[in-house]
């Protein structure tokens, strides 16, 4: 493949061995959209940055959301402040990270039985907060989106868009790395060394090699989202975190052209966002105790579908590919209903908590990730006495090819004729060719990561199609072995881990054709290969 826009990627300046102390300006903890956004923001301002992530990019809420770039209309009634933030941010993002965004437009749809006064207030509220909306005749709306229910009673058009959070993080970190940042995946904070109201260094451990080393930074940014509380606790600070699980379903095809919101007070199962060739239906809000090991349950799935089908009847019968869940990290203000807690972000400078060089950023929304990064970086710069203005507002985020494969059906946008002959598709569902896998492998290795099924899956569409890894997992594993990327028996466990991760996303919605597909998967991987018998 001939790739355009190839960026020279610098080799990381850090070679982490033994107990060496590595020094840097800022250590960012957490590789979600906020963390990678801060990394890019700070490197643009000329600071040295290391970003560590305990697993890999977008492992938390950044990877477990709709991918909806809110116009703000959803929050006009419940949280006007957030609404305005969303509105201005989405305009900036559309300008600067256009390649991660599809400007789908959005509809707010009310069906029979929805509260009349909410519908009546909606246009005025939008006007009041400067969020563009336009009333549309339900008939006309059904022509625009034929799958809308025939019980639709009111429709408003807004400027929603869909955003690919994976591509966003990959591109942000790629850009940061090209400006001298260092990204360490699978690296977990073990402890902070605190002296004189400040963190001296952080001891971190590489999850794969098991080695530890120390990172000494002037400032530490805790951008770990749902895990912000536990990181802060390491520095002896208590943050009262509340975790709210949201589950989402992915359909096998794109049902609507636009993002569809239910025109009512935000609650469960009322958004359907198109993402490439699929649509994503969500969400729920369930209070949970820990942000680890979350997955959608059968009950949640059924509930989301029963809510969603009121707006779009097709959701009852269509095929679902997978379900996933994300955790909204909310800083508790003592309210009972999670939906009432502000979706605005929380930025804490822990100077007040006697730790001068730790900042925590959590909460917020995907739509406002840039603003969160900007505000956080502002504090960091103030601490460093750097007086450079934030530049992410102006400088567009470059698009690199290793980020491209996170989008569905990329290959087929390019003239593929001359290439496909000698470049077999390793993932047939999403048509990811061997050359793309190789590109991604190289990119992972350059960032010091280990190319395995999960890390490749994070950066490409493999395993995300209807077969959910049944065929591509084995093909890519063989490919990795053939290239010598794996040289021991860890491949089997890697395969099992990958399949299990995929499984968590499908087990709650296996019926009809999806069950056929998963049965086939079990026949191959358990029936023939007997993977369930392989012990770690």
């Amino acid at each position, binding site marked *: 493949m001939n790739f355009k826009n190839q960026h020279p990627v610098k080799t990381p300046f850090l070679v982490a061995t033994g107990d060496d102390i590595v020094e840097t300006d800022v250590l960012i903890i957490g590789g979600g959209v906020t963390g990678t956004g801060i990394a890019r923001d700070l490197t643009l301002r000329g600071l040295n940055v290391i970003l560590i992530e305990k697993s890999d990019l977008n492992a938390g809420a950044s990877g477990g959301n709709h991918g909806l770039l809110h116009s703000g209309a959803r929050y006009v009634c419940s949280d006007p402040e957030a609404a305005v933030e969303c509105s201005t941010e989405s305009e900036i993002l559309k300008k600067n990270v256009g390649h991660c965004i599809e400007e789908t437009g959005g509809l707010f749809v009310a069906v029979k039985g929805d509260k009349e006064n909410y519908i009546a207030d909606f246009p005025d509220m939008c006007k009041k907060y400067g969020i563009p909306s336009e009333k549309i005749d339900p008939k006309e709306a059904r022509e625009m989106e034929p799958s809308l229910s025939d019980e639709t009673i009111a429709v408003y058009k807004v400027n929603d868009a869909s955003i690919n959070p994976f591509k966003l993080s990959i591109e942000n970190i790629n850009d940061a790395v090209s400006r001298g940042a260092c990204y360490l995946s699978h690296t977990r904070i073990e402890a902070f060394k605190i002296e004189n109201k400040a963190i001296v260094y952080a001891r971190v451990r590489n999850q794969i090699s098991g080695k530890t080393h120390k990172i000494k930074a002037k400032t530490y940014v805790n951008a770990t989202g749902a895990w912000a509380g536990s990181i802060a606790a390491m520095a002896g600070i208590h943050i009262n975190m509340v975790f709210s699980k949201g589950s989402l379903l992915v359909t096998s095809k794109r049902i609507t052209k636009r993002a569809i919101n239910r025109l009512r007070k935000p609650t469960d199962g009322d958004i359907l966002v198109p993402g490439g060739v699929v649509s994503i239906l969500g969400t729920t809000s369930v209070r949970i105790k820990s942000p680890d090991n979350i997955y959608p349950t059968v009950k949640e799935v059924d509930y989301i579908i029963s809510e969603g089908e009121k707006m779009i009847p097709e959701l009852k019968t269509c095929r679902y590919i997978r379900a996933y869940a994300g955790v909204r990290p909310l800083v508790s203000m003592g309210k009972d209903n999670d939906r009432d807690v502000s979706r605005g972000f929380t930025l804490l400078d822990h100077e007040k908590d006697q730790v001068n060089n730790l900042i925590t950023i959590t909460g917020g929304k995907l739509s406002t990730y840039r603003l969160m990064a900007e505000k956080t970086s502002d504090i960091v710069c103030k601490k460093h006495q750097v007086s450079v203005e934030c530049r992410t507002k102006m400088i567009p985020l470059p698009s690199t090819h290793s980020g491209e494969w996170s989008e569905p059906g990329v290959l087929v946008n390019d003239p593929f004729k001359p290439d496909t002959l000698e*470049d077999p598709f390793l993932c047939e569902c999403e048509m990811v060719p061997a050359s793309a896998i190789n590109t991604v492998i190289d990119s992972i290795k350059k960032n010091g990561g280990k190319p395995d099924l999960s890390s490749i899956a994070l950066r490409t569409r493999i395993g995300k199609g209807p077969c959910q890894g049944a065929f591509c997992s084995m093909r890519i594993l063989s490919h990795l072995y053939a290239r010598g990327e794996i040289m021991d028996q860890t491949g089997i466990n890697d395969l099992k881990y990958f399949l299990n991760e995929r499984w968590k996303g499908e*087990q709650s919605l296996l019926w009809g054709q999806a069950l056929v597909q998963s049965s086939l998967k079990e*026949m191959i991987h358990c029936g*023939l290969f*007997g993977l369930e018998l392989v012990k770690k």
Partner: protein
Amino acid sequence: MKDKKYITCDITVIGAGFAGMVAAARASALGLKTVQTGNSSHLYFASGLFDFLGVYPLHSRTVLQDPLTGLSLLQKEMPGHPYSKTSLEAILKSFDFLTRFLQSAGLNYIKPEKGNRSVLTSAGTFKPTCMIPETISKSRLLKNDTNLLLVDFKGLKGFCARQIADILKKNYPNILTLSVEVPGKNGDLNPTHLATLFEDSSFLKELATQISPFLDKVELMGIPAVCGVNKSLEALTRLEKMTGLDIFEIPMMPPSIPGLRLKNAFEKKLAKNKVHFLSQAKIKPPRFNGSEFVLDVMNQNMETQIRSRGGILATGRFPGGGLHAQRGRIQETVFNLPVYQPDERSLWHHLDFFEKQGHLINTAGVETDSVFRPVDTHGAIIYENLYAIGTILAHNDWVRLKSGSGVSALSAFTAVNDFYKKSTTGH
């Protein structure tokens, strides 16, 4: 008015998977006039290995060295399991029949021996099984210190010699690997196309010359299971002669060539035995008029009506379409028979894909009496001459127990025999 066609026969086999094929084979061998419907392509998913019982109890997560020890325990603990309905003798008889039938169709299988065999798979794991094609049989020669050469083919996705070697390195340190480029084929190489090449003598010669420089000290060779389609053993023997080595095949993921060989063997032999095969035919819900089944076949362009005294349901599970799962319930698709199943969907699957007990949904299916006639919840026979065989049977998580082919062969054999006995004694 569509063309209307009437067929009268002794027995109709609904389904052309492994169980359906065995049933049709048995029925035609007994001289019954047989009609078969279904889609034989599902045999592409068959590994070509005939399992008996590989793992029991499931939570032990260990391979049974001898299936008989597992069997006696299973028969005691799981009275609903198909194996518990019959004796060991019947199982062995059905395997014996199968071997002979396939032999007559030109496909050689090695008869069961005491204890399970373990067959190397393309994932680098060993699969416990009972009967294997002769082309795979030499994997038994693999000992811990064997100098084994593994060959893979560039472009054959999902099979990598290095992968198997790396995974087995600990126990089998002397594995060498070789990657062969197939002349004229760059890019994707599909198993069937490669397998067809193996029947070409010039290709074999070319392959042998490519391999020969690497054969120093090599004692045994493993190749992916793509060695020929119709004359696999012949091709393998020719290659063995050319290289002077013992060679065995390594089964890989579907589309599986050993499965294709089974499909071809069954189809050809059954056609010769005058089994009337209606490919991909859809059946309307059948009627039973007291003495015979009336099956209206929707054959798109013509309406065929089959009248048969007996019916054999071998439609398989979800992939075969025998069972269909709606969001909350599992149904049997042809006769709408009662399906034994977990109470609600949240019990269908575990959160862990590799859960040691297996997923509960895999025990769902049709419950039967001792000759595999479906019964209702009270244990009463639903139709006198209707049998359900193969993977559709309840209480048999065949994927985890590694009991698929055994149960299929046994149930098919038993059901047809029972029908035959009844129809000849005039019962």
